[in-house]
């Protein structure tokens, strides 16, 4: 049984050290993948390719970072990809009609955040299981986006706006700076703030959390709103990087984000995992695809290899955790 005292609020030491062990395994996996790819392809370790991989991983990470908090509370947000699609289409329209990139960015973030908040309300006030609530939301968002776009594509955005996703600062792609900022904020929030620790506690044992005075509903609302807002941020990066928005982008973004969270070692049962782990998860997924492109692996094998890696990662994770417990 979990001890309902003040100590229960700060993640028990064993959790942290266990997370540290898991992170060590993951970094080892990243190094192993890198070593193999470096031997097989000489361009792999070039600075250009490393920046390339980090920039590609950033989009998945932005979506997955907010999702990590949801999964930490033993919830799931299946609507993130559809949220990115709707937010991107609406933000794109705002930029096209008003000519203001700032207004577009704010709209995109707000749209994502509002969707997240609605998810949170469904989960807390209506007590709908998050899997069902956000699955329903996925359809609602798809429907709205398809209807709104009616098979059209928005494209062509101001050069200044395009800098966010495609530009460089001191030789580094701008999304990499954003990646570092949000990795830092996410890690500090989850590991070093009371709110963050309360989120772990809710995931570990919601009843104990409630009894120890944590405002569970308010924290859950926050967590879903953050997940939605991060999807809003991802929509801005997407728009700016791709210079276009279309209705069907959602499906290709949701599953990689969920996979990144799981490969990163966050447990679907809640209470265990880190935002940094999710970053590593996004990195592993990106590295594998990057490596297969560099090695010209046949199109047939790519989904198969990706699938096996996801299964292997989660299996190894459960195995090592069981041993640690």
């Amino acid at each position, binding site marked *: 049984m979990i001890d309902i005292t003040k100590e229960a609020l700060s993640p028990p030491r064993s959790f942290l050290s266990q997370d540290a062990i898991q992170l060590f395994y993951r970094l080892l996996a990243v190094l192993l993948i890198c070593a193999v790819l470096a031997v097989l392809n000489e361009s792999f370790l070039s600075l250009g390719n490393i920046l390339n991989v980090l920039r590609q991983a950033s989009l998945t990470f932005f979506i997955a970072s907010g999702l990590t908090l949801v999964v930490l509370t033993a919830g799931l947000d299946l609507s993130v990809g559809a949220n990115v699609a709707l937010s991107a289409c609406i933000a794109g329209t705002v930029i096209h009609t008003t000519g203001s990139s700032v207004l577009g960015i704010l709209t995109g973030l707000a749209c994502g955040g509002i969707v997240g908040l609605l998810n949170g309300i469904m989960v807390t006030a209506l007590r709908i299981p998050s899997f069902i609530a956000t699955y329903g939301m996925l359809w609602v968002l798809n429907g709205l986006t398809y209807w*709104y776009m*009616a098979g*059209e*594509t928005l494209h062509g955005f101001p050069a200044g706006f395009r800098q966010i996703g495609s530009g460089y600062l001191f030789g580094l792609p701008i999304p990499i700076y954003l990646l570092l900022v949000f990795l830092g904020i996410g890690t500090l929030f989850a590991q070093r703030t009371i709110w963050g620790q309360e989120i772990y506690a809710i995931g570990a044992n919601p009843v104990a959390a409630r009894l120890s005075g944590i405002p569970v509903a308010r924290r859950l609302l926050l967590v879903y709103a953050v997940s939605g807002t991060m999807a809003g941020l991802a929509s801005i990066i997407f728009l700016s990087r791709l210079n276009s928005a279309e209705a*069907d982008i959602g499906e290709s973004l949701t599953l990689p984000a969920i996979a990144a969270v799981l490969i990163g070692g966050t447990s679907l049962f809640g209470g265990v995992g880190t935002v940094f782990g999710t970053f590593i998860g996004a990195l592993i997924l990106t590295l594998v695809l990057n490596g297969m492109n*560099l090695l010209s692996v046949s*199109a047939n094998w790519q989904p198969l290899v990706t699938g096996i890696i996801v299964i292997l990662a989660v299996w190894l994770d459960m195995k090592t955790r069981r041993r640690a417990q």
Partner: protein
Amino acid sequence: MKRRLGYLALPLMMAAAFTTQARADGETIAVFTKNQTNPFFQTVRVGADAMAKTLNAKTLQYIPTKPDSIPEQLSQIEDVVVKKPSAIVFTPVDYKAMVPGVEKINDAKIPVVNITDRSAGGKFLSFIGADDYSLGLETARFLLKTLGGKGNIVIIEGVKGSLTNVDRVRGFNDALKENPGAKLLASQPGNYQRLQALQVMENLMQSNSQIDGVLAANDAMAVGAIEALDGANRKAQVIGINGTKEAIDAIKSGKLLASGDYNGFYQGCLGTMMAIRALREQPVIAEVVLKPTVITKDNYQPFDQPLEQRTCPTFEEASKLGAK
């Protein structure tokens, strides 16, 4: 913005269409397309509407809410069999899996025309489509001609195993075989998605210092590849397929070399025309496989006008559009 607001009227119009049964003067044609996300099917629907309007008939659009969903199209067929429209213009979401659905339509004795993807079974009044293989072949030939028959080429494939992708990529490869001077560096999947194509292109540029040509199996991926090239300050000739508005804009600005026109507007027009002609006991053409058009900077003008302003071909013109 104004035009978008016009879509607000759509549910109202649909509700009206469901409640009023076909009047004596206007047949109701149920038009089945695969999804609401691919601009191509929007052109099909606009073409079908344009032809129905000309012939004083009505259309009812059936589109799966989940793109290309087999169970959803099947249940839409069950609905339509109950509702009994005058005729059906049908694109299967999957050319094999929808055969039982087509048989249901046949059993209900509703006349049906097959467009875009050729169904693997069932009885149809006629087939109207384009040829993915020759689209792939002709666009790739155009690219290789522009490159003088040589250079380093990359193929970005669509969804592996989909009929359109298999045929288009086969066309690309056959054009490459005709040009022994050209070298295929890689054939990688972009799944018809812009972001995936952009990332694949970024990755391929890391290990290939010289890429001269990119053959993308659709326009969204072609534009994604161009974004990647621009981002790395590199140049290559890129072609796409579908002739979307975005592709036409990119051809105009010189970023895209060419796009193969799949001619959805004509497919919608002709499919609806054949259905209505059959109902009025006029002769129909059993099969029209539209000749592929490679849209380039020299001939993009007719494709540059808004869909609503395009005009359908007449029956006499239709018989010359590559009919067999």
